[in-house]
């Protein structure tokens, strides 16, 4: 049971990291405010099921769409504001969104929102049920991400990521593709938010602040930006730190920050990034195994 809860927590981060990867990885747009979209999805879902009595399974996609809609506006902003300025705007938006949730009565304001448990054939969804949903979602998002990588969208985003001006001059509609990346990335985060809200049964604005966004970004960068395996491994590592290091819980943040600094300093492409030490070694290993089999 405890193991299942830990896996759910890690799974949620995996989904969030994968969602951010589409924006900050594939499209190369710095986003330190993904927590806001996680929150928008969570609150929207909670309001839909809690205040309007909508079926959880309907609320999920609906909240994701609404989140993506707001992500659309961030995408619009990204056309005008770029790079580190954009990064700061995402921080600003994160803050503003959290402030709205903290102060607007409809969202429970300071008291937070209670979320009713979803219905699964007459019974409340169990933890195993949540874990199943999350695993299914992860598989879907991975498949989707792989599809993006191979598609026109992925190539366009890659061009934008490398050099936006050059991509523009080549006739690529950078505006359209950037917006698409934001919409997709934020919708997935929103979808995760709905699941999270119902799993926690109670949400507060502070769950979705700057620290959350930084954590998600760290996971992507730690594991390897612009890959699928990277965000997953990053989320697993950073998500498990609180559990693994519980015996030194006082030093946990110190360890976390230390790992972050060391990783960024010595391996900015991430643990399993395309150019990293570990990944290169793994590739060599794969190659040598292949050779042996062939011979």
């Amino acid at each position: 049971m405890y193991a299942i809860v830990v896996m759910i927590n890690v799974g949620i981060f995996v989904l969030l990291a994968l969602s951010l990867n589409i924006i900050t990885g594939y499209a190369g747009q710095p986003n330190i405010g993904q927590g806001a979209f996680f929150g928008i999805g969570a609150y929207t879902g909670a309001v839909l099921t809690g205040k309007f009595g909508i079926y959880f399974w309907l609320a999920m996609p609906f909240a994701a769409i609404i989140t993506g809609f707001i992500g659309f506006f961030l995408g619009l902003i990204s056309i005008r504001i770029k790079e580190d300025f954009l990064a700061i705007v995402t921080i600003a938006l994160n803050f503003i969104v959290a402030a709205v949730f903290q102060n607007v009565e409809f969202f429970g304001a300071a008291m937070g929102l209670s979320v009713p448990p979803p219905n699964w054939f007459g019974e409340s969804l169990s933890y195993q049920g949540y874990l199943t949903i999350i695993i299914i979602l992860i598989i879907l998002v991975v498949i989707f991400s792989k599809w993006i990588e191979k598609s026109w969208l992925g190539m366009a985003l890659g061009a934008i990521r490398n050099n936006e001006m050059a991509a523009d001059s080549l006739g690529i509609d950078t505006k359209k593709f950037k917006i698409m990346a934001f919409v997709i990335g934020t919708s997935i985060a929103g979808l995760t938010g709905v699941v999270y809200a119902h799993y926690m049964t109670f949400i507060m604005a502070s769950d979705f602040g700057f620290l959350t966004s930084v954590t998600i970004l760290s996971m992507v960068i730690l594991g390897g930006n612009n890959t699928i395996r990277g965000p997953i491994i990053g989320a697993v590592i950073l998500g498990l730190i609180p559990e693994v290091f519980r015996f030194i819980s006082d030093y946990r943040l110190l360890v976390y920050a230390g790992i972050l600094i060391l990783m960024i300093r010595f391996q900015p492409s991430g643990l399993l990034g395309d150019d990293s030490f570990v990944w290169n070694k793994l590739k060599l290993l794969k190659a040598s195994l292949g050779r042996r089999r062939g011979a």
Partner: protein
Amino acid sequence: MKRSFISLFLLVILLFAMSSLVMAQDVVKLGFFAPVTGPAAADGESALNSAKLAVEVINEEGGIDGREVQLVEYDDHLDSKQSVSIAQKLTTRDNVVAVVSGSYSGTTRPAATIYQNAKVPMISAYAIHPDIPKTGDYIFQQSFPGPVQGRVGGYMAVDDLGAQKIAILYVDNDFGSTLNDNFQEYVKEKGAEVVYVDSFAIGEREFNPVLTKIKGLNPDLIYVVAYAGEGAAIMRQSVDVGIEAQILGTEGMDSTTQFLQVAGEAAEGLIITTNLNRDSEEEQVIDYINRYTEKYGFAPDMVGASTYDAFMLLAHVMRQVGPDSEAIKDAMYEVEDYMTNTGLLYRYTEVGEAIKPVQVQVVKDGEFHYYDQITDMDIIAP
């Protein structure tokens, strides 16, 4: 034949000895979680200190029927994902019989659901969100709920201090907004006028603009719902700005080291609603304050005292019915007139809210002293 008999005999003795050793190691585990790291580290540390002291004292007094009490403590970093995960761990792996929450409302609430479902009694030491005890019959609050404190504040403001024009500043989380709502309800009913209301975020220190504005409105009293850091800043700056109105505070400012020392002379005359009476003549309160100060080097605060009491209450109940989760839960509702360091616990309501008197303290000569104690059932019953 004789030799094998002797060896068998010795074996039996050995087994007996081992089993009694095993039984002696049979401990009573109590779970605990608090935000020891993170933005609420000061309160978390205070709670943890008291928890450790409480368990020490309980064991000194013989434990529970001779069995040692073991504290299983965790740091939730003021993150609800952590408190939920900790709750799972405590109820499935650590096999605790009961849990005390030394954390804030935001982290305690989602965790409470887990304890309720696992049928493990949980007492929230100082998180006063009214929905926490409503989670279920296994969930209790150690201190009077937020709305009660807000009402008592209103009573003090209007009925005791005679204020007719009141300004309010409150921290914008659930603690602040609960107290603000109930305070306003009470004072408005009594005909007082609320001339100004404003909120601020935790960690805010700059109050000159808003205090300047309040001064211009000339209220009789300012009701401040804040934690030690902001509260100290408000006290200092209100002196700076030249405000002479009486200031009424809450348990958030109940701390010698963090509030009184920082606010200094500016805190003189402040009245707060809280649950720890420093002037109490009850021996156990004096003992607790002395012992805590001796062990940790500084005086305990409301957070510490509440946490300590939660553990002592559990010990009291366990000594009556044994360390069994369900028995503990049932016995909690039977508790009547039990004296804690934070006031006499009359009893629990059917949803697990504590009915206790509210202490009112005043800052005189740089220390908290007794001002009043509210026992009027009309006000303090949730």
